[in-house]
């Protein structure tokens, strides 16, 4: 598997640390309530198809990336800097 890091270019999977769903970007407010926090910390979809993950280019530039990929074909369709994605959410 290769991930096309926006800063470093296409790199072997070994350089990346896998975190999990990009849901982690949407941290609820402290008072958002039990359900929102449970969703945020524990509940994850398990799609057969498109999924958005957070990967850390740990052995490369150190950027956190939002990787859109297909869990069936394994095709990676989009790789974005997490700072850009989070910035656009603000």
């Amino acid at each position, binding site marked *: *598997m*290769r*991930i096309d890091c926006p800063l470093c270019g296409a790199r*072997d999977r070994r350089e990346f640390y896998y975190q999990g769903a990009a849901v982690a970007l949407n941290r609820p407010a402290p008072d958002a309530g039990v359900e929102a926090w449970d969703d945020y910390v524990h509940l994850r979809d398990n799609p057969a198809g498109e999924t958005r993950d*957070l990967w*850390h280019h740990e052995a490369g530039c150190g950027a956190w990336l939002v990787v859109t990929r297909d869990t069936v*074909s*394994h095709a990676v369709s989009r790789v974005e800097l997490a700072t850009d994605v989070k910035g656009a959410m603000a």
Partner: protein
Amino acid sequence: MRVAGKGLVNRDKSVTFRFDGVSYTGFEGDTVASALLANGITLMGRSFKYHRPRGVLTAGSEEPNAMVTVGEGAGAEPNVRATVQEIYEGLMVRSQNAWPSLDFDVMAVNDLAAPFLGAGFYYKTFMWPKRFWEAIYEPVIRKAAGLGALSGKHNEDTYEKAFAFCDLLVIGAGPAGLMAALAAGRAGVDVILCDEDMQVGGRLLAESGAVGHLSGADWAASVMAELEAMANVRVMTRTTVTGAYDGGTFGALERVNQHTGKRGGGAPLECFWRIAAKRSVLAAGALERPIAFQNNDRPGVMTAGAVRAYLNRWGVSPGEKVTVFGNNDDAHRTALDLAAAGVHVAALIDSRQGITVEAASFPVIVGAQVCNAAGRKALESVTVRTSAGEQSIQTDCLAVSGGWNPTVHLTCHMNGRPTWREDIQAFVPTAGSIPDMAVAGACDGVFSTLGCLKDGLRAGQEAAEALGKRVVAVDLPVADDAAYALEPLWAVAGKGRAWLDFQNDVSVKDIKQAAVENFRSVEHMKRYTTQGMATDQGKNSNVMALAVLADATGRGIPETGTTTFRPPYGPVAIAAMGAGAQGHGFAPERFTTSHKRSVERGAPMIEAGLWYRPSYFPKAGETTWRQSCDREVGYVRKAVGVCDVSTLGKIDIQGPDAAELLDFVYTNLFSTLQVGRVRYGLMLREDGTVMDDGTCARLGETHYVMTTTTAAAGAVMRHLEFVTQCLHPEWQVAFTSVTEQWAQFAVAGPKARELLNGVLAQPVDGESFPFMGCGPVEVAGVQGRLFRISFSGEHAYEVAVPSRYGASLFDLLLEHAERMGGGAYGMEALNVLRIEKGFITHAEIDGRRTAFDIGAARMISAKKDCVGKTMAARAGLMDEMRPQMVGIKPVDAAAVLSAGAHLYECGAAQVNGNGLGHVTSVGYSPDLGLQIGIAFVARGAARHGDVVRFVDAVRGLETDVEVCAPVFVDPEGGRVRG
């Protein structure tokens, strides 16, 4: 026997090798198989299960029978295919799976018991009694069955791993692959061309037909010469592409020195390549399939294409009187080539009716089938059945062709399923199975030489175009373009065992038995019969087996489907995949600046993550580690000890929002910390569990330096990156790991200040450096940092200098310490010192502990949000029945404690679910004169003074311990402030 005037081997260079201890001579370019056949040896192995005598079936890497062990001693390599192993001077080869000898194998009695050993035999027979399986059945079966065995010794051979990159990977250098590489190469594409053979050409090396005005082999050599002259093309021979993976990644095994005697001196035996390619062309060719009939496994029965290869490429006829049997036109070539070379052809038998063979100088029997073979260790005759009846033909070699199967394997590695083509009675790759891969030539069901050349040219040009290159014209040479015609014939009807999978001894009967027992799915059939397993992975037998299964279950072949081909295409030694990871290559070794001196002082080094740290520093006269440890604890409690603490993570944090970041990642406040002061901090994961702890010093208004535990340094760094990139990219803050910039030493004990003042330019006192103070200092002429922090409960400091001075400072500090009745202390003493004070490490915060559990709930500031705060407040994480951190000490002062032990109420049943908690750390406290420990006990904070039962079932320890506060020394904390 060699045939005069035939073959590509170098007859000017003879090579001597040994097979089962006997010396044989071949020529440069020979494989073990071709050289043995040239010497008249046809018996090369014994089968897996029945120990039937077997000869060579093929002339390539798909060989199921002729498996040999190469080399001797520790590095002897089993299960090498004799058809792949090239001979070299001094090569030692042994046959396998036969005892006492290949010629007389005792285990061949299995063959007589065959009626009882069919499909599912083991599953049905060895069910009971249950305990017999491990004790009797399995050892006996393992001894009897199997292929070659490893030496069991450490393999000293060198293996290598490497990475390669290209725009276009061409897999296979037959006519299609060569044309594809040529077309792409001329267009300027960055190409890698791989072929598993020792030279390029593929089938062209085995055929007599011409390409243009050259022989096939010469044409291949001419293309090779042109490719090698191109800077943008890399040709890798003896390199098998073993797997296709996500994102254009391929695995490939290069046999670097398997064909030479070169060993040692860093010369790799094999190299495992990871190739990243933008596009690929699969031109892997096709594999010929046999036809099943009774005793079709006799040595001397081989595929028709293999016989042709031995004749045309190696100048060897596998027999003196050869018979050819096939269901297709291609088989005719074998008879014609043999006859033209002067080899006696006993007959050509074609299963089809109405076939004529032009210019045949041998008997042609059409509408006929070979239904039996005779001769146990070597073929003596075959029985041919026609509508007129059966006749016997004396022959010592039978060349069989049931048609050709495109080598679709790689296209299935990403879950692709091949497509059945009725016209060629074979599976071909399904387009798009591997992204950006094109398939060309025989691999795609194109079987004429001209067709392959054309198809390869197309694939090469299309790839060049897709890669943005201008296509350059390549002339298509004239070559054979005969149509491929066949009528399906999988198994000849009749009694006896007709073999499908030679390597696993699976017969037509076994497949039918599987169908009868309702193992109708091809995947179930495979597992029930073992068809398609082992080194050849069904390369010869898969299509035949599923055709038989289809027939037995009344379905068509496409409906029956195929099993899944998975990587690797051919066997890959684990040593090759793990190359470089033995010994020092297993993991990075991180050495502190004091490492050399510690080792010189005899300190046993222990691993702490990747770091190596001294356990203790033995002194003359000390016979146990405990003596050293007790002495070192004494240094710190009574005088002064010095310990290298550089391995703790150090992160420099700067920026206008540095304080905000720290307030968010630590449970407690850091924005309120004064410049020049240090504070202990606790970090949680977002789920409320403790992630790490450590101190953080404020060096300036917007400048902090955080320390992490040695173990969590990487994880904390990643966490900080996460927080600042994924949660708060708006914060203006930067952090940099400075773990390696600073060599840092703890100087601890009542005489710590006295020692430091001996090395600092400006002496420190309680005012300039109070407890938890920090600041820049000059140490022996070097700018450093001083932190007054303590992990021992004693008056202590940590002094840091740039790493280049670390070794020197360590020496200097030890010199001073030793003069003052102190000295160096290692991890064992450090551990005792911190247990005596109840300071935690990751033995305590093991990923299940909350701030509440470790008695630090009040460290979660109410004034602000922080990572983990919300979830840490969940009722379940604050439940008083949770195991809470306590100290333990044995009621009997002489009792031995151990970490990992469980705690129960005295008198309670010591069973799972009944425990109170467990012990995380123990050590011997010289001060108290007994072993002490840290443990987690349900409702522990309220149970100080209670006696509970300590049980270590693993080490057989059991004793009563008293629960107490987890501070054993100086509970008021006066010393640290003194």
